[in-house]
């Protein structure tokens, strides 16, 4: 660690010789302590430091949703959030959805049963966003789902099957 960096009485986060700070993230229910540079995005850190490759880089500018991460249950673009600012929040990636014995989450199973994907690059983002949608609006209509998911892009064009999956997942979650 280098000397303390204090400006106007406020101390900057301590950096190592590589300019990295030590942060603690809550990812999929586990506490993870890692070294990151302050400009590293949550997406980069999840993939490169934690090996969680569910969040993917698509556009890199917050428009496509392939990098969606749930932050305290709310979908956020991992490509637009510095990892250091995600401290203190509950983070969920697609890897955090499966049950204790590896069984798929009902939304995942609905996507499988309806083939709500083709190449699947966008799928983790769609499933996580659907999870937030159905938590917020358990009775979401197809149009409401369409509006909520408008910021998730599928270049294969599987939208019809994706909406089929979400509407079925809604019923499954109600039991």
């Amino acid at each position: 660690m280098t000397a303390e960096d204090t400006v106007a009485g406020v101390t900057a986060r301590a950096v190592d010789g590589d300019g990295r700070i030590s942060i603690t993230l809550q990812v999929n229910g586990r506490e993870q302590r890692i070294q990151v540079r302050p400009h590293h995005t949550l997406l980069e850190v999840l993939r490169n430091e934690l090996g969680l490759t569910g969040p993917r880089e698509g556009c890199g500018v917050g428009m496509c949703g392939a990098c969606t991460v749930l932050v305290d249950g709310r979908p956020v673009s991992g490509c637009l959030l510095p990892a250091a600012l995600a401290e203190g929040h509950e983070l969920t990636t697609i890897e955090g959805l499966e049950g204790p014995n590896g069984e798929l989450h009902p939304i995942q199973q609905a996507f499988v049963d309806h083939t709500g994907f083709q190449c699947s690059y966008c799928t983790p983002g769609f499933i996580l966003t659907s999870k937030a949608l159905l938590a917020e609006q358990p009775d979401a209509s197809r149009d409401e789902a369409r509006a909520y998911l408008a910021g998730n892009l599928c270049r294969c064009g599987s939208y019809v099957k994706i909406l089929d999956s979400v509407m079925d997942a809604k019923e499954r979650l109600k039991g």
Partner: protein
Amino acid sequence: MPEPLRLFQPTSIEEAVAVLAELGDDAKVVAGATALTLLYRQRLIAPGALVSIGRIPGLKTIEVVDGELRLGALVSHREVELSPVVRESIPVVADAFGKVANVRVRNAATVGGVMAESDYASDPPAVFVALDAVVDVQGSNGKRSIPASAFFVAFYETALEHDEIVIGVRVPVPPAGTGAVYHKFVTRSSEDRPCVGVAGVVRLHADGTVADLRVAVGAAAETPQRFWDTEALAIGKPLDADLIAQVADAYADQVDTLDDMRGSAWYRTEMVRVWVRRAIESAAAAAAPAR
């Protein structure tokens, strides 16, 4: 490789302002981080330090006090969109924030951020300008309030001094019977930024003449465009098709429209003409509910 960033996470506005005063332009304030991360990754900015204000308490209020809707700087777009307080007091504010980008951006981007960024293609600024909102800021010399119409200066440029932080926005609640709308016109996809966004506010006397008319055009020029002289021409006159066309034409004439991938300057001028007319019509319809 860029110089390592220094990260400051002050826990009071005073601390944040002190760091900014000392570091000057080398430090950037960050809240939801959506705009900052984009600008940083595109190498449009290269700050040496980030001052994260996310740990400062007291900046997440949404309340109506003394006839004003008060939004704290750290309130997210999504919180504005869903807030019952906002929806009941000034629904057009909730509507405009709900039209920004996608749900992910709205979960992260903040009220203070969209003001301080001064991106010409954001939705909320035009609404704040039309509603005569006031931006509260705090710096080394204390607090001051800046009318939204004077806050946005140019592309990515505001009236903020380098050591000042937006701490909130106050919006006067319009008198009962006022109609207020925001029309977002997109040319590519539903979640795109606007080609033109128009906020319209109309209040009518019982005889159908105009008591109040305000129009602000966003995304068409460097800053939200409002023409008070044009608005004043309408006061006291019957709000008929001729008067609305006159205001729409005057706005089309006066907005110095810009070119970008969402529309040419010529096209934007014509869309200003169309959407100012529609905004006034729908604000008038909202102002005069069916009897």
